[in-house]
């Protein structure tokens, strides 16, 4: 963890409650994320981790609570505002654009930065053509960074699972986000793929200073790479602190022992 300096609070979640009918997915959750840190969210299945990310980037609307992003209050976050504000994410069940190539999937991540109007695009002239080339260069940097040059023209549906996860990350990185939300980026991967993915996450965090909020089940990974950890269980927060603090927390230990049999 060299070269990077943890900053102020960039994202602050206050008293978030979310329910689906009778299911209370999140109950009065508060925690914050500091600039440039890697913040993990852990917890047993169904604890509400994915729901938490969905609240942060406006896919779900919490019934109560508040999101404060860089000092700005968002009572009503929506996905578009979240994207504009510099939030990007990947999905637990890969959500790539199946009918498109790897390159097009990643290029789509640049859509907010592409400004040429439709008529110019249809004529493929001037700004539209320049823009397309400019963003292609940026996307190629990301492709190099994630070592997926060999598959850039492949339709994503034909890729093995591990590579699809990498393309999902590439598309999120194409947004040049300030905060990257990752939902189980290493689930279902073999050891080698996990190591690669860890390396990418650490590099993104280190080189671009991107703040990372990460959901992960692999405790080894979580304890290794994260600065601070939030623990959820049945929609409630039961722990929050450094990996060592969390590991020593009796509530956390019992939740995990309770969940493991």
């Amino acid at each position, binding site marked *: 963890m060299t070269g990077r300096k943890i900053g102020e609070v960039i994202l602050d979640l206050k008293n978030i409650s979310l329910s689906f009918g009778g299911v209370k997915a999140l109950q009065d959750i508060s925690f914050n994320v500091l600039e440039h840190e890697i913040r993990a969210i852990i917890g047993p299945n169904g604890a509400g981790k994915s729901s938490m990310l969905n609240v942060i*980037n406006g*896919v779900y609307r919490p019934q109560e609570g508040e999101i404060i992003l860089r000092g700005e209050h968002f009572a009503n976050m929506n*996905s*578009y505002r*979240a*994207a*504009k504000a510099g939030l*990007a*994410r990947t*999905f637990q069940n890969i*959500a*790539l*654009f*199946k*009918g*498109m190539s790897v390159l*097009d999937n990643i*290029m*789509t*991540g*640049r*859509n*907010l930065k*592409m400004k*040429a109007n*439709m008529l110019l*695009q*249809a*004529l*493929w002239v001037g700004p*539209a053509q320049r*823009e*397309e*080339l400019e963003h*292609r*260069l940026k996307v*190629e940097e990301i492709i190099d960074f994630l070592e997926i040059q060999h598959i850039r023209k492949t339709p994503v549906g034909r890729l093995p699972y591990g590579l699809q996860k990498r393309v999902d990350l590439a*598309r*999120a990185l194409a*947004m040049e986000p300030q905060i990257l939300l990752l939902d189980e980026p290493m689930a279902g991967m073999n050891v080698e793929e996990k190591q690669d993915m860890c390396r990418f996450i650490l590099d993104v965090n280190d080189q671009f200073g991107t703040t990372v909020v990460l959901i992960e089940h692999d405790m080894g990974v979580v304890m290794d790479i994260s600065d601070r950890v939030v623990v959820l269980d049945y929609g409630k927060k039961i722990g929050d602190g450094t990996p060592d603090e969390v590991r020593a927390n009796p509530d956390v230990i019992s939740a995990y022992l309770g969940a493991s049999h």
Partner: protein
Amino acid sequence: MFYRENGQFKTSYKSDQQIFPIPQDRWAIVAIVALAFFAVPMMVDEYLFRAILIPFLILSLAALGVNILVGYCGQITLGAGAFMAVGAYAAYNFLIRVSGMPALGAILLGGLTAAAVGIVFGIPSLRVRGLYLAVATLAAQFFWDWAFLRVKWFTNDASSGSVSVADISVFGWTIDSPSDKYLFCLGILVIFSLMAKNMVRGSIGRQWMAIRDMDVAATVIGIRPMYAKLTAFAVSSFYVGVAGALWGFVHLGSWEPAAFSIDRSFQLLFMVIIGGMGAIAGSFFGAAFIVILPIFLNQLLPVIGGWFGLEVSIALVSHVEIMIFGALIAFFLIVEPHGIARLWSTGREKLRLWPFPH
């Protein structure tokens, strides 16, 4: 000369971003377009122009429009015929009501009117999808069928909505002979196809496809579904509307609302399914297929019937036609949702590697 990419490494992203990155493809397309412009008019007779080539060109344009909406943006429409009608009748009204209106201007304004109407009828797509959206677009079809039959203003008080347009002229070129009509439609189709290709390989096309493939992921990267869907409805309806205006002005000359009935809507949708959803070329394959098949069967079935001493009636031919369409649509929906265009490109991929199987 082999169909090969060997040795042709792209040295810049710019050359990689061309419409047809493989030079052989590029030359093939240029050759086909050149043939279509220069050789075809000298080779074919009037019947071929009227019965096959002109309808093929105009329906290709309409299918291209439907493909943008259905194939690229993943929406559904059963109202394409109505948007052709809106294009045709709007163009007609611009032509007769605005003094000095040039025909080409009227045709394009007809397309723009269809685009505006398309946006309105696309609004339900923001809330509903699939079957419900199909029903909403079907409502558009019934509404416009009714309007052009009953609202006299649209048809300049003509009885039963029948209107006619004299031969048009464009920049001093009077388009009256079949070969003129063919060249005019071909010119428009080439320009519109290039523009469609540019859109689908650009940012707006990626937004459409993103909405089609995974709308939650699309919104999370900042794509607004409303913008993506309504632009798809607008562009699609513009294409379909211009095709409708050409169908009226150039192909038919005089027409009534029945020319753009629900049958036309289904026909256009079938073209896209058979030809290939989400492929520009698919629109042409589909249109060619649907224009040629009936003529082909009309010639062939009586001959086959003759071998067995059977009398083949016209009714039988049209029944066989419907059965073949039904079977093909079921085949393509189940086995190859990307239609003839995909079969074509798979064949080409094999050719690229030929004679080595892998």
